């Protein structure tokens, strides 16, 4: 039972690692989230910065710090 559980954990970790390490879709720009409603379903109930951070990681495999994401979102909101 313990062996099975640890195997499942290893598999789950491997899956997460593969998801993080997946090659990027392309050399793209940051998704513009300025038109979305923060803390709502369309941002998966995250802030705009949090959602940008999550999307950039999922789509491109790049982790931004929260401070960076906030700065980028501020730039996008200014340009809206």
């Amino acid at each position, binding site marked *: 039972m313990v062996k099975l559980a640890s195997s499942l954990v290893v598999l789950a970790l491997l899956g997460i690692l593969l998801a993080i390490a997946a090659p990027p879709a392309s*050399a*793209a720009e940051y998704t513009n989230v300025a038109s979305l409603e923060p803390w709502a*379903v*369309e941002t998966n109930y995250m802030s705009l910065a949090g959602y940008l951070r999550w999307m950039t990681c*999922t789509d491109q495999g790049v982790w931004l*710090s929260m401070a*960076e994401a906030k700065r*980028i979102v501020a730039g996008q909101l200014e340009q809206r």
Partner: protein
Amino acid sequence: MRSFLFALAFALPLAALPAVADASPLTCNPLGNPLPLIGANLDPASLTPEAQSAELARLAEIGATSIRLLLDWNRVEPQPGNFTWAAYDSLVDAALAQGLDVVLVLGPCAEWAVDPAWNVPPDRRAYSIPRSLDLWERYVSRAVSHFRTRVHSWQVRRHPNVHYFRGARSEYILLLRAAAHQIRTHDPHALIIVPEPGSLGLATLDQLLHSPASDDCDILGLYLPAKERSFSDAALAWAVLAHEVLAGSEALAGPDLPHRQPIWILGPDAPTPEPHLLAHYLLAAAFGADRCYLPANALRADWLCPLSNLRYLGFLHLGPELWALAFEDAAGSVVAAWTSDECEVLAAAIAPISDPDLVRQAALLGDPAGTAIVSRPGDASPGDSITLRLGPRPALIRGLAAGAASPGAPTRRDVLAARPGPDLQRLPLAYADYAMDLLPEFGLYNRSLRDLPGGAISEELRVGRPCLRTHMTSRKGEEKLDNPYLYFDVDDTWLYFDRAGTRVAITVECEGSFRGQKKLGFNIMYDATTGYRFTPWQWVDPGYRWRRHRIELDDVSFANRDGYDFRINVKGSKQDLWVAAVTIEKLPPPSP
């Protein structure tokens, strides 16, 4: 409904939809255009001073005309205010002594200039931005002043995309404008190269050329697409860029430049096998690129020398399997041909044979030991049956009648006409309906896109109907394993980078929520003229029946920006979405 859609697709009279403008051949690519000048991307840190001299001499000897170097801010200003140019002076001087022009790339960011409050990981600080514009301006000002008499081409940052630039587009523009001001102050005749984010992003390039920042751009810098992108996709982007985007913009024509928009290839987007580099170089020649920078270690005499003195004439084949471009030099015509996969091709299928003996000398570019000719025992075959073994590495073939080539750079129509399948441009709609056994995807494709991030959805039966199903986990901490996206690519013949702003309506037919109100919904992220945009969130009502959600859009670009045109996003829902069909239709323009 399904049979109605099928009939609609084929039986409707072809509406007189406005055709894409048939652009006239570019004045920037007349017959007999020379191939792009070759430059080398060099990394000074990887070469000792002795090795630098030898390498520069080698590059000059084999025909390179220029080198491109990253002027690492960290190396020239290791501490604030302390500049040192020793790492670059000798290399720049040695390059000039060999007759090589020098392009310097401003950046990456000095690590000490990054605001610690941004919490940028130490190994990524070089890709960040300086905390103050003053620091950047000082670095640029000192660099241009120091190299003013030796260097006259400056690129602003290497690659303004997610991987190499941790800032918003507006922040890049600020850096660009500040750098341009400093460059022009110290060297009014310098050229400023603005790089694209990558992957021949048409919408981004179009935006740049129509923005105030275009005043600061003398040269448009492009990157060769990654190996995974097909030649046909790349050729289509090139054709639209060259004939439509650049042709419509006067922004880059300067007083000292010929009346056309110069394009420099700055290198490959990602590590690329040599055969693909060579093929993309030849393709870039067809579209009038002026210079092409490749990694220094990819530049060799065995492929540069055969291409020297060639001038581009026109195109013979634009895929999908066989590509053939026609060139000429003093000795006569030369056809460069390659195929996506290894295969045998009759030489006569490429172009009429004018001299069989010359055709039999066909050789693979950059592979002196290789031959493109398939030899058969006792082969004294007449010219008509000469067989070539082609693959991704281009072969150079003399003895073919290149007069059959269509002159000039291929247009959008030329590239699309070479693709298999019908031309869907005049059809009012395209669909993906997985209950249609014969043709589930007509002009709208998902099956080829399920390797994209978060797009590993499945086809399953739902109430007896084949559907696309997302896969979302409800377990906390495992959100990274979610697959909430249904990616779609619209057939390029139906709609591709339409700057006229065709209005479309996307209809999603899906099953109702079985978890109640506000538990299931989606929005659509789509490739728009101003970047990716989102539609408003659509809640799917509960109930075990099929529901249709129709969304109208008036700013679609659909230029395959990241390999897709739009995606249905379900993230945020409490259950999976089952999609039976997606249709997209062109709408008439709004009445005035």
